[in-house]
């Protein structure tokens, strides 16, 4: 079929537009799922849960911040920054309140191919696990922590050169990462099932 014949009809034009587009999307999706193509995420406003078998990171700090809830009321959260994080068997879930509907994301299920995140910032209200820190400082002022991002003067804060958390379970109300390599990504609409 000649090009001019294609461009003359709506169907032909739709094909011309659609074929390369879907090809690019297909390649990108394959790349994202293999962790070769990083994505950027920024979610806030609703509580969601994150679980991971382990998290290893460098450049950690934590201090108080605030998040807004559904009523527009601001309430405190603990803001954790991790410069470089590696997560094994990551699970992230959001539930639509009052409905058996949610979103369940899993990634990094292959131990040899974990999820990697850069400039990870999490606003959390609950964190569980067993943690190990290297070169930790607890109680320093939030404006003097050793990370790029820092809190406001007068707040209790902590930082460490390295952090590792096993059996991580956390409830967060915001997360953002400049670079997120979600290997073995599996994203599905769930019936409201959550990570924990």
């Amino acid at each position, binding site marked *: 079929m000649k090009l001019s014949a294609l*461009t003359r*009809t*709506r*169907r032909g*034009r739709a*094909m*011309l*537009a*659609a*074929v390369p*587009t*879907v*090809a690019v999307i*297909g390649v*990108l*999706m*394959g790349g994202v799922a293999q962790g070769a193509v990083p*994505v*950027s*995420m*920024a*979610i*806030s*406003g*609703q509580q*969601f849960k994150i679980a991971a078998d382990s998290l290893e990171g460098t450049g950690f700090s934590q201090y*108080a911040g*605030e998040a*807004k*809830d*559904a009523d527009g009321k601001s309430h*405190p*959260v*603990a803001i954790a920054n991790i410069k470089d994080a590696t997560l094994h068997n990551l699970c992230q879930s*959001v539930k639509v309140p009052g409905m058996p509907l949610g*979103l*369940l994301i899993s990634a990094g299920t292959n131990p040899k191919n974990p999820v990697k995140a850069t400039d990870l910032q999490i606003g959390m209200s*609950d*964190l*569980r*696990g*067993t943690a190990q*820190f290297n070169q*930790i*400082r*607890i*109680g320093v*002022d939030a*404006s003097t922590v050793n990370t790029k991002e820092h809190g406001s003067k*007068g707040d*209790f*804060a902590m930082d460490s050169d390295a952090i590792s958390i096993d059996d991580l*379970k956390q409830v967060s109300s915001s997360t953002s990462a*400049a670079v997120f390599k979600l290997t073995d990504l599996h*994203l*599905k609409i*769930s*019936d409201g*099932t959550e990570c*924990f």
Partner: protein
Amino acid sequence: MSDENIPTGPEETPESSPGPASGAPVTRRRRFAAWRRERPFWGGTLAILSGVVLWFSGRLELDNLEIQLGIEGMQSTLLPVALVLLGALVMTQPQFRVFYGVITLAISVYSLLGVNLGGFGVGMVLGVVGGILAVSWMPRPAADEAADEHAESVEEPPASEPAAGTPADPRVEGEEVGLAEILPFDDEPARGPRHAAVIAAVAVLALGGTGTTAVEAAAAPTSQVRAASSCWDPLGWLEWICGSDEDAEPTPSPTGSEDAGTDEDGGAQDGDTSSGDDESGDGAADGGTSAAGDDGEGPGGDDADGAGTDGKDGAGKDAEDADEKDEDADTPAEEEAQEEVEKEFALELGPCARITFGGEYDINVSLPGDCGKREDAHVFSRDGDLETRDLQLPLTGLNGIDVVNVPVTNDGPRRDALRISVDSVKVPGFWLKTYAENNGTLGGTVTNAGYVSMEGDAQMYISSIHANLPDGEDWAELGEKIAAGASPVEMLLGLTDARIGLMGATSDKQVWSEFREQVWED
């Protein structure tokens, strides 16, 4: 089938001619239908919709808009806004539909990487379908208007540009033909309303089901990369379509629900215990902070401080006298032991540390003054409240205990802290409450842990200690220990049920075992 659909309407006319509306009075609905027919309405609508979906994929609360700052935040704000604008523009300026449509396609595809996986797939698919509809839209041939083939050829370059990229996969072609069949690519006016219904159905399908046709088509070009399956589904987005396949695999949902079940039990217990802790902690914390406030009157009022603490000493002793019912009788041995402890403290820590006895706890140490050795390694803030069953440390690991004067951001520029340096210390039954201020409301975190251990050059900066004598140990025994040469520090570290005003702690290595950190607010 649609080869006769060669567009004949001039590109520039759509806005200028009201079409059928110019004739006899027509209903509003008909006018809208006519208006709609003159522009890539569905393409624009889907593009706007995709922008809205992408916008809210990052902001899951509808009634609580939050603008995110920073590079990541900019993407998740800018791209949805651009899509909405493009959708509106392509409807108002149909003559630029190819330009707007191609940009819409490019932004939609990029949203996969830039905005939460393309609004978890939905926004991206809407934008792609909208972009394709916009690019492929052509004005209807108006029977009473002359054909204008030239407009067609003008548009060829941009339209053909993307075609150079990929050879058409037969399967994709098939898919697209299928897509084209259901979309209103023919233009018999009589079928207008039905088209609208079909388009609406496609839009709903795309919204609810992540656009089956488009995603399937998307999968096709790379299907050779993966094991060929009738449902190529690398991201698991199509599980509910490819259900039979996927069900064979262990899907996360059953295990997930099991997890949820067991964990909920655990969670409930946790919640119970922690809420109990919180209550006790709150009560205790109130006492603690007010006491700290009394103590920390600042360096200026040394005299007043002295008087205050003297008074407190007296009060403490009175209270301790009053406490006699709890404690053993106020034997001379006890007073002697207390005097001994005080003396030892003064000897070891100088006049900066003040020790009192009795009250809620057997022994209270505070540092009201501003007279320690200056140390500027760290800037501290509000004290945290640390509670522990006892402090365990190997006696050989104790490197020193002294009073240092450190910079703080609350309660004046500097204040005294008791610095305990140890090689390693283990804090069982760890409970730490931290404080921060947000717009006038006080909040912070409460952390429970099975134990916290610090190793390697551990330093604890302490502003106050309240603790009890170990069970089964009375003052007489303590006096004997002191007399036998035990340092007050050893004595302190042997205390139990300690409540410590923790300014800070640093160490090379630190383990928080089975901890749980929760945010609290007033």
